[in-house]
């Protein structure tokens, strides 16, 4: 008898076995793997149900993947909108700075601060 419970070590030994011997082997295997006719039917039903559930889960996983890609697309679109908005705000701010720097007040202030800037540069160089 083999380790797995069968009396046959090598299936080739059964090639010339008698009908009785074969039936005995089949009975043993059915007992070993619990596959009587009624039980087999139940197992097929169970496996089919599991297969159907797996297929449904696969379908949902595919939908999930498509959904993630769609959400990524949405995020990219939002990012592009916010980037455009930010770019516009930066442009507007730069324009305001330029406008400010072209005012007479700014220019006069800059002129008045000229000696201080020169002095600071000299001190830095020293």
């Amino acid at each position, binding site marked *: 008898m083999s380790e797995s419970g069968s009396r046959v070590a090598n299936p080739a030994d059964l090639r010339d076995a008698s009908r009785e011997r074969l039936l005995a082997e089949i009975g043993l295997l059915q007992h070993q793997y619990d596959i009587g006719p009624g039980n087999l039917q139940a197992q097929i039903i169970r496996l089919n149900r599991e297969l159907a559930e797996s297929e449904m889960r696969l379908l949902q996983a*595919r939908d999930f993947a498509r*959904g993630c890609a769609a959400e990524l697309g*949405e995020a990219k679109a939002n990012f592009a909108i916010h980037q455009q908005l930010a770019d516009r705000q930066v442009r507007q701010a730069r324009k305001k700075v330029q406008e400010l720097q072209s005012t007479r007040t700014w220019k006069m202030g800059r002129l008045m601060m000229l000696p201080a800037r020169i002095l600071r540069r000299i001190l830095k160089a020293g």
Partner: protein
Amino acid sequence: MPLFSVITPVYNPPIDAFEACIASMLAQTFDDWEWCLVDDASPNPKVREVMEQLARKDKRVRIAFRSTNGGIVAASQDALDIATGTFIALLDHDDVLHEKALGLTANKISSDGTIDYVYSDENKLDEQGRPYDLFRKPAFDPIRLLGQNYCSHISVIRSTLIDDVGGFRTGYEGSQDYDLILRVTERARTIAHIPEVLYHWRAIPGSAANQLDAKPYALVSAERAVKDHLRRVNIDATVSVSDAGFIQVRPTISSPPPKVSIIIPTRGDPQRVWGIHTCLIENAVSSILKKSTYPNYEIVVVLDVQEDKPLHPVSLPHDPRISVVHYDAPFNFSDKCNVGVKHSTGEIVILLNDDTEVIDADWIETLVSMLQFPDVAMVGPMLLLEDSRIQSAGHTNIPSPHNIGSGLSSNQTGKFGMFGVTRRVSGVTAACAAIHRSIYEELGGFSIDYPACFNDLDFGNKVLEAGYHIVWTPLARLFHFESLTRDPTVAPHEMAMLEKRWKRYFGKEDYSRQPA
């Protein structure tokens, strides 16, 4: 060599309309053009006078006069023969160009070196020159182009491509532009649409703009042009002309015809239909069995049960084509569709609501036929309310996702034939939609995150995002006794889910820009 050669065959136009046409050309803000006018032996001598005066006034104008009247194809071809521009623009002798027509077209062309064909939106001018009938055209839709020459005006074509296809063809009088556009679009590398009105089409008595039956010979030519086109692009199809003057193309279904699985989720509810107490699923199944002529289909009814018993008594005919799958989970329309598809075996699945009733016997043939067009994944029919008004003629995203044509009369073909021609859309309702099973599975079926609403919108967006197309056809019709079976209230989380995935497309639309 100018960028544009505008070609205009001239035959006895009303002089004031002709002068308006001339004024619009001379007012173009873009300068790099020539205008080739060929007079087809107009009886009115004033026409020649106006043309000669124009040629003297502007050196970009090139004129020719035919000694005998040869018809519009001969005159158009003569104009084409003297054109030297890189692109050819077609202008009729009584129509008016927007002053920026050539300028905006030049901008579009310069944005992509592979553009071979450009068309724009258009409107019409009445006899007093007042604009009306603004036509907001779809992005290029080769299926709609089979039903009508919607590209029409203004059409601008790369001249080398016109040479390649052999220019205008005799024998297609009245539809010579349509024939040319069909041949050009078959070979164009890139086709561009400018969503601006660049062309004003004058509707004067006898012109095609004014009435469909003004030129019946044009329809005969159009039908022949479409048949030729289908032969060239290897689509085997039957072609006919509808009463409303649209070409109807039905691609041939392979033999043997593919098996179709009709999936009907239902609770088995009874409702009043045409005043009669009716079990909706029994009515739907009965109408399919009685009317459908398609030879190879099955019906899979996904029936809600509680402790393995139906919620309502349902009696379906004993027919080997019908199978019933019990569904005992909480209500989820999407899941029920997925379960139904899983239990079916057809290559093509038709999702069908139980509150529907078949009108046309060949409805399955038509839906299957439309799925034969290249890259078409999903097809929806014309759905009518109980009183025969339209329930849905596809979906549009403008201003937000909704059914096209809902509540409008189904006796008319709608603005610019939108209810009369088969065309691409951004979605169709799952009340009746045919889908290739392989694509349904590839895209993960209907998302169970939408138990009641928007599952079809979500699926449609998945279809488009994957690079497939969705088609709506008026050639198959069913009644849809809308929302008789369930509360149409939208759950906030379903809207939130839709926005999370697809909000970027709300308000944007490639195919149904025209309000119904």
